[in-house]
């Protein structure tokens, strides 16, 4: 939802942490969902992320709306060998909404946490430096299929990385991802602007609460008007943020 609202020129929360779910831009996103679901197979809502990929590489579905680099790993593992490449499974550009100018893209993060009270902090930092040296990181990247895209620019540019068989097979995917990153269009889950990372510490609670998903399901499964579903989500989010002290009044 973060990437779609970004693609439609909107945001999820304003500076005072007030949810913007009844905004016209969100209504347009919900209308897009409603339209999109017309082309989904019956019972699509019973499929999770992995099942959706299963339908794709199991040749039951022609396309899926949203997938990430890790999908290449699933395809490599389960699809017939001759099909496991970017010629069979191509990537399209992300859509741009009627009120937007450029696409937004959700990227998977690779977070490491160093706790301030942890013992051996220096050693942990040394470990990370060691881990991210090109040769060591390459080992990791090349053995973890979901880890298609390295976070260091030096490894991305390295011929050793570029020449990996898997990277060769999925070059088209790599280029699309690289393009989004070059244009600064990739953000973590529900992050619309980089400032959200520090100013909106509640995004994971919002994600975990399922409120956003419920809103979409109210529209596409319960056939609610987008405005009604958005108003319900707005109320629930306001309650959530108020109870945590992020939203005043």
């Amino acid at each position: 939802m973060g990437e779609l609202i970004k693609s439609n020129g909107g945001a999820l929360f304003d500076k005072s942490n007030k949810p913007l779910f009844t905004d016209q831009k969100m209504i347009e996103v919900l209308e897009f969902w409603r339209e999109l679901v017309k082309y989904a197979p019956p019972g699509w809502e019973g499929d999770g992320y992995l099942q959706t990929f299963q339908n794709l590489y199991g040749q039951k579905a022609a396309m899926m709306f949203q997938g990430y680099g890790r999908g290449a790993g699933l395809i490599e593992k389960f699809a017939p060998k001759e099909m496991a490449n970017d010629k069979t499974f191509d990537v399209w550009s992300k859509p741009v909404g009627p009120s937007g100018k450029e696409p937004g893209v959700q990227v998977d993060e690779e977070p490491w946490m160093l706790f301030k009270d942890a013992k051996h902090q220096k050693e942990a930092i040394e470990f990370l430096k060691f881990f991210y040296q090109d040769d060591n990181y390459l080992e990791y990247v090349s053995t973890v299929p979901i880890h298609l895209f390295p976070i260091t620019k030096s490894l991305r540019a390295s011929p050793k990385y570029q020449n990996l068989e898997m990277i060769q097979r999925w070059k088209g995917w790599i280029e699309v991802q690289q393009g989004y990153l070059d244009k600064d269009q990739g953000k973590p889950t529900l992050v619309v602007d980089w400032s959200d990372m520090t100013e909106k510490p509640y995004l994971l609670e919002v994600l975990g609460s399922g409120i956003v998903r419920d809103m979409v399901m109210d529209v596409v499964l319960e056939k609610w008007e987008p405005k009604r579903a958005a108003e319900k989500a707005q109320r629930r989010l306001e309650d959530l943020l108020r109870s945590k002290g992020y939203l005043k009044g």
Partner: protein
Amino acid sequence: MSRCVSPAHRERRARSERAVPSMGSEPFRLPEAAVGFLLILPAILLLLSLTLYPVLYGVWISFFNKHSFFPQQTFIWLDNYIFLLRDPEFWASVWRGTVYALSTIMLQIVLGVGAALLLNELFPGRNILRGIVIFPYVVPTVVAVIVWKWLLNSRFGLINYLIEKAGLVDQPISFMGKDWIMVSLIIVSVWQFFPFVVIGVLARLQTIPEELYDAAKVDGGNAWQRFVYVTLPQLKSVLFVIVLLRSIWMFTKFDTPWLMIQGGGAETYIRTLPIYTYMRTFAYYEAGLGSAMAVVMFLALAGAAVLYFRIWRREENL
């Protein structure tokens, strides 16, 4: 009660009693009740610390606005409970939980009693079948749910394949979709837990005196009448306990629905009260509200149990 004691033993005892010097007062001895109390004290402490304390702490934090992991908390009196009264999601989850619990209990009882009656008859391979029937109950929930999700898969599942082959449907049924997911959950749960009923009822069936059936036959009772007038009354006490336990367990069941809803948009349709309580606590990080929901669940169950006891004990003289 008298004991046979040898003369030598009697002599030794008399000598030892004479040898004890008189001190003018009895030696200090703890009263018997105190000794008993000290002996059960470790068990009491264990129960208090592992059961009562967490429960009371849960009740206590239900009066707070408390983050699940951070130490900050604010006392808000009954606000969490007032919020629940006005929260449509809460009431929807209560409704879903009730539908789930009642349907599964009813079907478990019917299927369990039926299977137990069958397994109580004499036929070749009975012992093997008795072992097989218990199998679903011993399979880990995670394994059971994974297998069932595969069986029920709309595009690759065996059940859809078979019913399509048999010409029963034109299109595969989306068992994990909006319209079927509750039914699927009920099927999986009944399959998983009906052996509990079988074990209890079968054990009781084996202790019903054969003479009762003989007498019923002499009175001209057919198979159905023997079941209604002999078997069922004899099963009352065991069914009383089974219904009580299964009601508590099914109303608070978490693992099976949780594993069924992993991924997929139909999650909302089986979001029962335990699931919503977990979400409030560990996804919204609202430990106070989560505790309030757990307290409500506990009170509802306790109330229902008391009511159940009163009605049944009075009516059935159990």
